[in-house]
């Protein structure tokens, strides 16, 4: 696999620079400058997210204030309560997005594990050709096949269903995921398997009992990407879902931002944006090692 392990964003603790003897003062200056620059930059990158969360927790009237307040007079869940009542209720859209993400993640995990195992461990005519075929879809932007997908889903009566959208998202995830899983299986020494074969283990059982635990990290990566991909996607959801009850979170947020004759409810918007960011940020912070690993592997393909 790639040299991605030490790329994980958590890094071992080392001094900024090896201190050349007798240059302590200069070293300190460099050190201070370095940390000042990095801290300011880090705060700039984190600011929009923090600012949105803070505004979401303001009372609704303060969130709408013009010019904006820099600090709320008190904290309140008013915006979230308004959001809970918006249209079908935020819970409805959260559920739509979450269930589509869940279906996408599970389908991607199952299909890419099977496929990755097949491509890695079995020899059969046309194997490389089929693998290239699946991989080559990476070069084609999914944006260019949405019109036929719209027609196709309609013909299959999957239009406006969560299952339909989840299947489409799964398809978009497959080339990367199959590639990842094949690499993961390739990295498992053959001896382990051979021992199991001699014990009379059937392929599917072997996959489940012997191989799966060994490709766990790859699978986590695949699932993470599938989650981010489906949770955040807008264009396909916009086109393939027209039943308002099936809207995903991004589509619903976009509609809320369009406002009515009254102005846009900015506090409600920030509450919604916060809810949409939260799972992504949490999953990333918990599992960033796997995420970065997948990103690097995918890029260096």
């Amino acid at each position, binding site marked *: 696999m790639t040299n991605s392990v030490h790329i994980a964003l958590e890094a071992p603790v080392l001094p900024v620079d090896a201190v050349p003897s007798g240059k302590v003062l200069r070293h300190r200056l460099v050190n201070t400058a370095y940390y000042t620059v990095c801290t300011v930059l880090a705060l700039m990158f984190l600011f929009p997210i923090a600012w949105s969360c803070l505004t979401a927790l303001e009372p609704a009237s303060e969130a709408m204030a013009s010019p904006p307040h820099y600090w709320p007079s008190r904290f309140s869940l008013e915006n979230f309560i308004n959001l809970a009542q918006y249209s079908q209720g935020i819970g409805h859209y959260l559920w739509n997005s979450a269930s589509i993400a869940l279906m996408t993640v599970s389908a991607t995990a199952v299909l890419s594990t099977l496929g990755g195992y097949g491509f890695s461990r079995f020899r059969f005519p046309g194997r490389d050709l089929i693998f290239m075929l699946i991989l080559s879809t990476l070069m084609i932007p999914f944006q260019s096949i949405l019109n036929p997908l719209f027609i196709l889903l309609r013909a299959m009566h999957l239009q406006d269903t969560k299952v339909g959208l989840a299947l489409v998202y799964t398809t978009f995830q497959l080339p990367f995921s199959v590639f990842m899983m094949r690499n993961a299986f390739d990295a498992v020494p053959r001896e382990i398997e051979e021992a199991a074969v001699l014990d009379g283990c059937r392929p599917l059982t072997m996959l489940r009992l012997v191989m799966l635990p060994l490709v766990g990290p790859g699978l986590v990566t695949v699932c993470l990407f599938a989650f981010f991909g489906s949770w955040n996607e807008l264009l396909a959801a916009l086109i393939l879902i027209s039943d308002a009850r099936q809207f995903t979170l991004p589509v619903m947020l976009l509609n809320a931002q369009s406002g*009515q004759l009254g102005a846009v409810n900015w506090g409600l918007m920030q509450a919604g944006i916060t809810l949409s960011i939260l799972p992504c940020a949490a999953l990333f912070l918990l599992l960033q090692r796997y995420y970065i690993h997948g990103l690097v592997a995918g890029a260096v393909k």
Partner: protein
Amino acid sequence: MKISAFVKRLAGVVGASALVVSSSAHAEEISFWVRAADQAFVEPMVKAWNDKHATKVALTVIPSDDFVTKFGTAVAGGAAPDVVAIDLIFVPAFAQAGQLSDLSAEVKALPYAKELSPSHMRLGAYNGKQYSVPFSAESSILLYNKQLFKRAGLNPDAPPKTMAEIQAAAKKITALGGGVKGFYFSGACGGCNIFTLTPYVWASGGDVLSADGKKETLDNPALRNTLTMYRQMWTDGLIPGGAKTDNGSNFINPFFTGKIGMMGSGAFSIGLLKKEHPEIDFGVTPLPGAKGGSASFAGGDSIAIPATSKNKKAAWEFITWCLSSDVQIDQFAKGGSIPVRADFANNTYAKQDARVGIVSAAMQSGRTPYSPYFNQLFNDPNGPWLAMIQEAVFGKGVDPAIKDAQGRFKQILGN
């Protein structure tokens, strides 16, 4: 078919395990779509229906700009609602595409069929069949702030009668300072401007489309004058900067601040202002032409049943209720708008406010352009009409803007 049944069942299983159980499980529910611009008066109306009826109406509000896109996609995908209230100018496109139910027989049976708003009925008819009935009426007028008129030394009871007078009044009002501006319009909203800007053109003897709607007629002095007036007011600073990016979501809001002298608006503003901002003393007057005269856009929404609806009977029941005095008088007229039935014109609420008489008269004499390409031409936020207004008022100038638009209109109409 078997696959789809299986998938539906699968979806059902997934859906049933949801924490939030969808209310669509009720058999007796009709879905109803409206555009965001109507939300304020439709929400209380739907609530009133749901309080009294066993059949529930599930309301969905669609952003006004996206309405045709969303509805068209839904229709194509077989996910159209049971009832839809559409801007009357879009009815021809959907009727022509065969996506609306034929209501001719039902309409004929209505005892008040002859009283229904003629503009709505005309646009709802296609090939001798009736595909929609009126829902709400909306006519464009000039809305003005009487307090600001007084402060600027203008007579609040003698509003402008020509476009030049509008410009002069706007100048005087802006001179009051303190953030007060003479004029406002939603500069990034095509639909708003077909409603509030074209009447100046009509009143000055011009038009934007030929009578049959098949040819563009943008190259005329009336349109040029109107756009020039807007451009001058913009460059003279008589219009607030926010006008340029307002995509219609602030259509009337700036007037609420009490800092806007005049703006083109609709009948709905009377009720809205009286309810939400009783502190503002306002008047309405017909939109004038270059040398007097006046015109109005007779708009509003029509209500129809998409061809794919499975609850046509309940849907029609709901529609007839929308046409009854329960809605047209007790909801709409009470809220300050105009009923869509002529026999309701002289209702008690209209008599209480002379301003309602002005918008009613505007509705009677108002015009409505007819084109199946209306959305592409006028309402589309990236369409040629809005591009023309933006270029003419804020950009390159009136003449190049009209020239560009003329070409792009031709291209769309030619198809």
